[in-house]
């Protein structure tokens, strides 16, 4: 993976998000306290927020270039976004949620429905009503739905917040092997030391909109 973020500036309420970073590690963490600008950074990459200035590209594909007033539409970025809040479509069944982003023309075997469903162990949930899912089940469906859209990059925004420890560890284990299984790089936002150490190969510390440190999680956070 080569995610290039150059001269990204985005004015937030308390401060400006200012990021310059080239990311290569397939499992990169964005670590920082609440309100540091982590979600805004992810949303800028996904195209859900328009930064004042930025040049963002992923593996040579230009996402954003404010100098040329260019912004690749969200739907063409092929970003699997797993937000912190509930994001399943409440009027669709679990199965239809999972199939929403799948492309019937695509023959991408890696992201076959059965493979993703088996990997995340969600087969028993397929016929359930979305509103009857627990928080942990909900997040696993959201991750599966993002995977089934065959993304180039997975953005995970504190996906394990508000989960109990047992459930958190179970999903953490799945996330740790997710890159090996599907080959998708991920950007993982968290403010939890243990999560960052468990999942990430590299961590960027974000404080008040600025990257203050960068390195291996065990060195930065332990």
């Amino acid at each position, binding site marked *: 993976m080569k995610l290039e973020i150059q001269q990204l500036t985005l004015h937030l309420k308390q401060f400006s998000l200012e990021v310059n970073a080239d990311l290569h590690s397939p499992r990169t963490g964005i670590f920082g306290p609440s309100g540091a600008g982590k979600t805004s950074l992810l949303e800028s990459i*996904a*195209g*859900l927020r328009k930064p004042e200035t930025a040049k963002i590209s992923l593996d040579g594909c230009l996402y954003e270039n404010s100098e040329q007033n260019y912004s690749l*539409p*969200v*739907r*063409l*970025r*092929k*970003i*699997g*976004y797993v*937000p912190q*809040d509930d*994001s399943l*479509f*409440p*009027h669709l069944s679990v199965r239809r949620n999972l199939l*929403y*982003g799948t*492309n019937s023309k695509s023959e991408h075997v890696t992201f076959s429905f059965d493979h993703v469903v088996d990997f995340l162990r969600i087969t028993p949930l397929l016929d359930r009503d979305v509103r009857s899912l627990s928080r942990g089940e909900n997040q696993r469906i959201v991750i599966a*739905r*993002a995977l089934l*859209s065959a993304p180039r990059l997975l953005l995970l925004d504190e996906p394990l917040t508000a989960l109990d420890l047992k459930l958190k560890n179970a999903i953490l284990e799945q996330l740790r092997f997710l890159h090996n299984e599907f080959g998708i790089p991920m950007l993982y936002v968290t403010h939890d030391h243990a999560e960052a150490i468990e999942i990430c190969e590299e961590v960027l510390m974000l404080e008040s909109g600025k990257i203050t440190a960068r390195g291996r999680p065990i060195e930065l956070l332990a």
Partner: protein
Amino acid sequence: MWLTPAEWQIVRFTLAVCALSTAIILPLGLAVAWPLARHRWPGKLLVETLVTLPLVLPPVATGLLLLKLFSRRGGLGQFLHEHLGMDVVFTWRAVVAAAAVMSFPLLVRSARVGFQSVNQRLEQIARTLGASNARVFFTITLPLAARGIIAGIVLAFARAVGEFGATIVVAGNIPGKTTTLSLEIFETVQLGHDASAYRLLIVSALIAFGAVWCSEVLMKRSALR
């Protein structure tokens, strides 16, 4: 059955023109409600005011405006007569036009609330999954706004059934041609035909009850989905 053939004809005619007027304003109402709910644009306040105007104007005044607009010497009426050979004033088309204009604000207001109630985060997520704007609208926005839209359809239909003031000005009360339930109730009361007036009153109440009942059932279904 206890209704006379003439009364049955009036009931059928009323239901038909009200259904038609509601069907006509539905796409237009959604097209107006959506940008009102979601965007800021120059002239928005003017459009909001114009849309609400039929609610606050005396219905007879709205009828007079429609009469001017659709008469053979009016702008739209002249165009329709010369190019399509179509007359509107004092025909069933005028009944549909009056019902449509008078019920339009209710549809727009409810649909707008429906669109505003949709969590825009879900629309963003749909886009990250590769959905085009049209697909997002038809598969996420519209179903999630369904409760407001259904309520708007029912309100608009019920308002159309009860329409009187604008209709009598622009369509008149021509038996077998433009007479609706409301006009006939007024006519029978004027003539002292109380039995007929009460029969039509009961039919009006049943239609209103049926419309609200249907909307409740549909809204419950959309909430359960």
